[in-house]
């Protein structure tokens, strides 16, 4: 990697000051994507602002929602009693990310801010009607993800926490890419009193997305049979070495069936 400056502030306000003091600075969360990118010399920021000391890693029960600090590691979410009780599907998702090393370094905020099209967390954010709390505002999930690796975050905006609404029931099932074990297709299904939300990750050219037809079908009948007659369109789905759009469309339906079974 290119040599760069490294700063580790103690609060988000200090972090903001630090990043403003640099030309092209980058916030460093768990570093699961950024560090390999730097090592391969694919990025050369003027400095890194490590926000792991900014006290952003608490998990709390907010009544209708579970609020998780942005710097909470996947392993902490997976092991959290609060999360396991209120939204076990979210704990299951966190427990299936990467490997043990990744789960003990990677963070919720880092994953969501990066919005990798094959990351697991964005599907939970979208399906669980999450609110993304930043240093300046609160953003609804439906407004947050704007495209592959793109979000509504503005320059120097830090995710501080994310509140996930408690569903009546939910599940996350993924089909991992055989090589990388990222989600080739991951489906998060969440049922609320006002309907079912289905978010699909790993498959869309524009990143994570909600699947309206499946939501409608499952809202009237939360059962795998409700999906049998549905034809899943392959339009807009990713095509790569490992999966064609058609295969991904099949996996979307199959993983959703498994999620509600």
């Amino acid at each position, binding site marked *: 990697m290119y040599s760069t400056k490294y700063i580790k502030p103690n609060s988000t306000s200090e972090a903001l000051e630090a990043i403003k003091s640099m030309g092209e600075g980058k916030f460093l969360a768990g570093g699961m994507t950024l560090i390999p990118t730097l090592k391969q*010399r694919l990025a050369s920021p003027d400095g890194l602002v490590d926000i792991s000391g900014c006290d952003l890693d608490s998990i709390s029960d907010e009544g209708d929602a579970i609020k998780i600090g942005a710097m909470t590691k996947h392993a902490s979410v997976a092991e959290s009693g609060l999360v396991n009780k209120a939204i076990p599907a979210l704990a299951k998702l966190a427990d299936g990310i990467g490997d043990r090393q990744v789960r003990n370094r990677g963070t919720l905020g880092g994953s969501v801010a990066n919005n990798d099209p094959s990351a697991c967390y964005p599907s939970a954010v979208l399906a669980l009607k999450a609110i993304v709390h930043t240093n300046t505002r609160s953003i609804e999930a439906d407004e947050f993800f704007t495209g592959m690796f793109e979000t509504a975050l503005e320059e120097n905006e830090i995710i501080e926490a994310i509140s996930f609404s408690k569903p009546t029931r939910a599940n996350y099932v993924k089909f991992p890419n055989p090589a990388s074990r990222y989600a080739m297709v991951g489906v998060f299904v969440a049922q609320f009193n006002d309907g079912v939300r289905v978010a699909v990750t790993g498959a869309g050219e524009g990143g994570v997305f909600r699947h309206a037809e499946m939501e409608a079908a499952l809202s009237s009948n939360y059962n795998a049979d409700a999906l049998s007659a549905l034809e899943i369109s392959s339009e807009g789905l990713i095509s790569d*070495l490992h999966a064609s759009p058609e295969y991904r469309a099949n996996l979307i339906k*199959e993983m959703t069936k498994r999620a509600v079974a």
Partner: protein
Amino acid sequence: MNEVTKIDGIGSSVRRTEDKKFLTGKGRYTDDINRPGQVQAYFLRSDVAHAEIKSIDTKAAQSAPGVVGVFTGSDIAADKVGGPICGWVVPCRDGSSTKEPPHPLLAQGKVRFVGDAVAVVVAETMEQAKSAAELIDVDYNELTPVVDFVSADKGAQIHEEVPNNCYFDWELGDESATNKAIESAAKVVKLSVRNNRLVPNAMEPRSALAEYDSLDESYTLHTTSQNPHLTRLVLAAFMFAIPESKLRVIAPDVGGGFGSKIYVYIEEAVCVWASKKIGRPVKWTADRTQAFLTDCHGRDHVNDVQLALDENNKIIGLRVDTVCNLGAYLSAFSVVVPTILHGTLLSGQYDIPTIYTNVKGMATNTVNVDAYRGAGRPEATYLLERTMETAAKEVGMDPAEFRRINFIPKDAFPYQTQVALQYDIGDYEPHLDKAMEMIDYSNFEKRRAEAAKRGMYRGIGMSSYIEACGLAPSAVVGALGGRVGQWESASVRVNPTGTISVFTGSHSHGQGHATTFAQIVADKLGIPMENVEVIHGDTDKTPFGMGSYGSRSLASGGSAISKAVDKIINKSKKIAAHLLEASEDDIDFKDGKFVVGGTDKEKAFGEIALAAYVPHNYPLETLEPGLEENAFYDPTNFVFPSGTHIAEVEIDPATGVVEVVDWAACDDFGNLVNPMIVEGQVHGGIAQGIGQALLEDAHYDENGQLLTASYMDYCMPRADDLPSFKVGYTNTPCTHNDLGVKGCGEAGAIASPPALINAVIDALSPLGVTDMSMPATPQKVWKAIQESQSVAAE
């Protein structure tokens, strides 16, 4: 089975003595070694597959921070340093020889694959070297890349010396007799198979550290090599034209090779050259991306097979036409792998009256292709065992029975095949029977029906393979185009207190030689294993030896050690006879003691050792003092392990995922020295075979870019991809080495891919699926199921 004679002798599953350091992170690999004043080398590599170099501007790089030297092909040419050589060539059908284009250490006017080295930057640190390399400006005139090897003859010519991009066009066997057999056959089974291209992926990337001593004008090279003596020979004699005595090559702990570390690569040679040029030690270590791009790849064949059967389903002839990809330059053993190590294996375990094969080796704008675990034999076994299974299904026979009626009968050994090899011994029905028993073959249909109730397709498939390893004898190797001998060396030094230092020409890069070889010596001398130390991997310490590849270490290297120990025992008997005042003929050696037959007069081995080094009472007039013996062992034949592997799979039609649910491996490796180490080799081999059959695929796009250049896209087998293996053995001891041993290192990788693909096809056979290419990825299997269903619907 082996009789356990001693607690740690031959036949005993002694724990690997080397594991303590490896498991506690104390292994000492090339990159762990640092020398005072050391600098780092970084290679600027071509990012285009095929181009002329119009110009290279290194000016800015030369003056970048920390840079001590920037060199290009013209600097190498000025010093007249040669490139890597091809260690084995074959004659072509038209009477010409293999075309051997030069392989320059750094590109000379042209680049031929993505990863071809264009320049080297040497700097104080690796980061400085990388930063400086970014300042080098190379102006390319891009040419059309040749990527598809089957149509490479019609592509742009890659080397002036290689017309039609064909390095060789070789044949073996009787073409007219084979064609006649095919014409007269009651049935001809035709099959076209592709052996997918693999990246070896040794855990330790390649590395080199070269140092020049200006006082005595000598070099020391630490490198990741499977055969340090051959590396020294090639570097000294063919590349630098210096005496071997001026170059010491040390291959310290090496973290896996699988064939990819046999050859001398350009990077090690450039480090040697630069260490003198700069006058400081030069280190280079590949990162994983460089390993993907520049380590020699493996396999990459297409084979057209025709198997002729008579009315009783007996094989009467076999014809195989093969085209294989050898990549941008001819690597050391790239020619022998698809020819001598492939064509000669086509008889398998079967009595085939006539065989003919033709192999075309093509140049492409991809990295070189050479030996990878099995090297030619997996390709031969794959095409043959896929064909056997297909033939059995086509003639309506159980695949096991179809194999059985075509096996070479037990009483036919030694058996002369129609493709040059003579099998010394074998007995194939017992391992077939045993493997079938281990996997409960007779109740398979019940398991298939039970799986069907769960909506799963269950299948079973087998592979009865032959392996030829411990390449030999040297005279035959030479006659077949080999440019090296194929013997192995050992030096056994008895120290004055009776401990032993064994110096072997073999090289261990994970195989456990320190344990296995010590067991042989301990067993033969009747001494504890802890008293035996095995030394390898240093040309200044060990006798000239050929290293480790092709499952040769035990059969060739172990036999050499055994012979050297025999010499020790013979000399010791003479010393014992003197000390015991008896005739040499009356001395018996047993359990570490020399005993005068019929008496209680005896001398322990340690007493003999001491007498040899403190010869106060010693027959100096007839015997030299000291106790150290060398042996150079040139085997009289290959060794021929064989076996049957049976795989059982379940396929989820909704996703196409193939789960390997059971595996039975029954192998005949002759006598086993350490059954635990052998079982480990079998496990590892099957894991790599499952990787090839289900997961791994090196994929270049049409521009010659390797799309699978990281673990994000290149799928390695993981523990959860594998079942628990059932491993068993039969034993027909090798007839021509003292230990009765064969090789076991590659058998798993040879046997497993066809067994697994046969099982996948069997699982899908109710849908009418009759073929499946490797790797059988979920997407591919799902697609085959969809297509079969749409055919059924029409």
